[in-house]
């Protein structure tokens, strides 16, 4: 046996084997695509078998045998054309023209081969090049349009088709030549061997090859989704997960439905909010209820009630698989495809794999959430401990003075009822009692803060007026605070007592560490109202500026100042301002000292009233007449 004969034999065995496998699948799946694939390889295998049998019977070369061989052979490009239609659709005329050409060539081969052998061969070559070439090109185009395994399988089919056509054309050409050309025969057989290998990869890829082809998509999915375990917002995480799934499939979209505790409702993430549906709604609902994958090649037909929804999502085909761990039904994963998948078994495989990965990710998210909740609880407990300890310490000192002075007074009076009052002792008592009161207030504020009850109702209010009130309160105690303000009101949505508390706190801090009253400035910057409390005190070391709003933090350069609070004041300020949707920050005063700025959203910009008297006084409700919409 020569090498050529050996390759030829291998080719023949492989094509017959491929036919058997594809035929079995066609009988099982009963889809047009699988029958056309069986037709393709049946034609080729038939040609091979016929040649062998004719050889064996000694009838090869007889007219009838040649005619049947040629008809079988030309059936192959015709089958490819049918496959193109199955994969990507072709205009109807292409199929009609292809069919007509096939019939024409068959008739010619049966009736005219004896008389015009060369002409028939040339016509067959043209038929092969035209129809087969078109099919190979169409497969390649479909491959480029697809992703993942489909892309690679389709490329293999395209290569197989192209090489097979080339091999047949070479053999036919060799027969046309006046002199024998064994080289062409060898090249033809090698091409055929490559073609049959490519067909195997395209139509019945081995598992290891599918795994290798699937790997980049899977890796892409994992790379995109692994960080989702720590994305705090559930909805954002689900939306990203859907993006990763759709991307892995090259599908137009994906949806992850999350079941509630008793599995009666599936919750979907929409761009702006969660949307809930009964657990049996949509094709996804069927997959969830029945705990099995559901394929709806034509979603509108499978679930006509929701045809509009599928149309709106560009979902011709919907494939859904349940997301389930061993003991928990988490939800359901669906992909939407604009066209029916070509190799649906691969898509199902990937979908189930991704559903499993999604289950793992969602479980990990739940665990992460549990863990951080636990940590937060521990942190809270620790802080509470810390807080009580700090608070207790700070309360004891003033309490010692108040108690001590009171007992001293008691003793003095016991010894001499007419003993003169000790003014310094009384002053100490009053001072420390006040300090005690401030600490207790701070503690109670902090307590409320921890329970998240700090903010009451926010109503439109003039911030200039609030600043004036706080300033006037200090004025009553003989403390003059310079203020720079615009003439018109600056309105924000404010919980007034709380905002006053913030300003009082900032002013007290400035007095404590600046030893003289601060300057106040209020004005509008863009759509913000900014209130600045500017002192010329000790300032804050640069490296500590970020930390001064932390709970219990006290700047290192004020530790020695005896009359410090709990280190909660700025923390409370920040919390109140944050609950107003605003910002608070520190910047150094250029001439030395600290400037604290509170910025709140300017709710309703005012146009200056043309005549102040004609406008109702702010903030009466009827004042809205002087407002314009933002």
């Amino acid at each position, binding site marked *: 046996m020569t090498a050529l004969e050996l390759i030829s034999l291998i080719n023949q065995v492989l094509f017959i084997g491929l036919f058997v496998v594809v035929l079995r699948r066609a009988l099982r799946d009963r889809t047009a695509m699988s029958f056309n694939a069986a037709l393709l390889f049946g034609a080729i295998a038939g040609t091979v078998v016929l040649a062998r049998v004719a050889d064996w019977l000694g009838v090869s070369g007889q007219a009838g045998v040649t005619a049947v061989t040629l008809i079988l052979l030309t059936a192959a490009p015709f089958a490819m054309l049918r496959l193109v239609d199955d994969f990507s659709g072709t205009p109807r005329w292409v199929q009609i023209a292809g069919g007509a050409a096939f019939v024409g060539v068959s008739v010619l081969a049966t009736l005219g081969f004896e008389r015009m052998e060369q002409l028939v061969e040339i016509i067959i070559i043209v038929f092969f090049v035209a129809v087969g070439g078109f099919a190979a090109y169409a497969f390649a185009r479909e491959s480029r349009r697809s992703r993942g395994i489909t892309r690679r399988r389709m490329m293999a089919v395209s290569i197989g088709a192209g090489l097979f056509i080339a091999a047949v054309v070479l053999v036919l050409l060799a027969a046309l030549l006046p002199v024998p050309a064994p080289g062409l025969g060898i090249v033809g057989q090698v091409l055929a061997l490559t073609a049959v290998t490519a067909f195997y990869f395209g139509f019945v890829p081995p598992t290891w090859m599918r795994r290798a082809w699937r790997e980049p998509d899977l890796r892409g999915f994992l790379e995109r989704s692994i960080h989702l375990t720590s994305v705090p917002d559930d909805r954002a995480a689900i939306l990203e997960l859907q993006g990763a799934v759709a991307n892995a499939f090259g599908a137009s979209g994906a949806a992850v439905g999350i079941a509630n505790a008793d599995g009666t409702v599936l919750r979907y993430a929409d761009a702006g909010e969660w949307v809930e549906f009964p657990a049996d709604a949509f094709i996804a609902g069927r997959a969830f209820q029945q705990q099995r994958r559901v394929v709806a090649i034509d979603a509108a037909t499978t679930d006509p009630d929701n045809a509009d929804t599928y149309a709106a999502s560009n979902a011709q085909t919907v494939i859904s698989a349940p997301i389930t761990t061993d003991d928990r039904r988490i939800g359901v994963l669906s992909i939407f495809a604009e066209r029916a998948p070509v190799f649906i078994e691969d898509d199902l495989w990937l979908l189930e794999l991704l559903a499993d990965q999604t289950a793992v990710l969602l479980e990990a998210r739940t665990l992460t959430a549990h863990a951080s909740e636990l940590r937060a609880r521990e942190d809270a407990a620790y802080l509470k401990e810390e807080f009580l300890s700090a608070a*207790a310490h700070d309360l004891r000192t003033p309490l010692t003075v108040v108690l*001590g002075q009171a007992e001293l007074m008691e003793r003095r009076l016991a010894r001499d009822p007419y003993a003169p009052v000790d003014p310094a002792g009384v002053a100490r008592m009053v001072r420390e009692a006040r300090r005690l009161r401030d600490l207790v207030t701070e503690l109670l504020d902090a307590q409320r803060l921890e329970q998240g009850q700090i903010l009451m109702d926010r109503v439109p209010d003039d911030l200039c007026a609030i600043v004036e009130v706080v300033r006037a309160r200090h004025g009553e105690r003989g403390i003059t605070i310079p203020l720079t303000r615009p003439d018109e009101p600056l309105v924000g949505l404010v919980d007034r007592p709380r905002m006053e508390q913030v300003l009082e706190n900032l002013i007290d801090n400035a007095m404590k560490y600046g030893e003289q009253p601060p300057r106040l400035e209020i004005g509008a910057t863009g759509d913000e109202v900014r209130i600045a409390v500017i002192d010329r005190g000790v300032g804050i070391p640069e490296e500590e500026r970020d930390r001064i709003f932390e709970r219990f933090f006290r700047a290192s350069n004020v530790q020695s100042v005896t009359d410090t609070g709990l280190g909660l004041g700025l923390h409370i300020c920040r919390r109140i301002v944050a609950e107003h949707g605003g910002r608070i920050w520190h910047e150094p005063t250029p001439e030395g000292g600290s400037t604290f700025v509170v910025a709140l959203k300017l709710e309703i910009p005012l146009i200056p009233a043309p005549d102040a008297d004609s406008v109702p006084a702010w903030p009466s409700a009827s004042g809205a007449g002087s407002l314009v919409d933002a």
Partner: protein
Amino acid sequence: MPDIRILVVDDEPDIRATVSAMLEIEGYDVAEAPDGAAALAAIEQRRPDIILLDMRMPILDGWGFAAELRRRGHQTPIVVMTAARDAARWAGDIAAAAFVAKPFGYDDLISAVESARPPS
């Protein structure tokens, strides 16, 4: 007891004043210092019989002061007065004669001082 001299060391002026007033009514001879460093200077001048010592102070704290005091060879008994929960442990740290935890009243202070008073 005019012969018993006490040094009150605390960074809180109101505490110093209150404690001093209580001790003076009881007849002790009282001096004050706002931190450990000032207290060390006062020791050399006044030679107190008892030291009432706050622990957390700026410049030189109670531990630093006690260590330096002993290093200089003074055996003056110390009464720790602190607002911390660890008053007893801190008193142990520096081998204090007694401790009094803030907030303390008149009687707590006097009995702590009496218990630390060296036998005359």
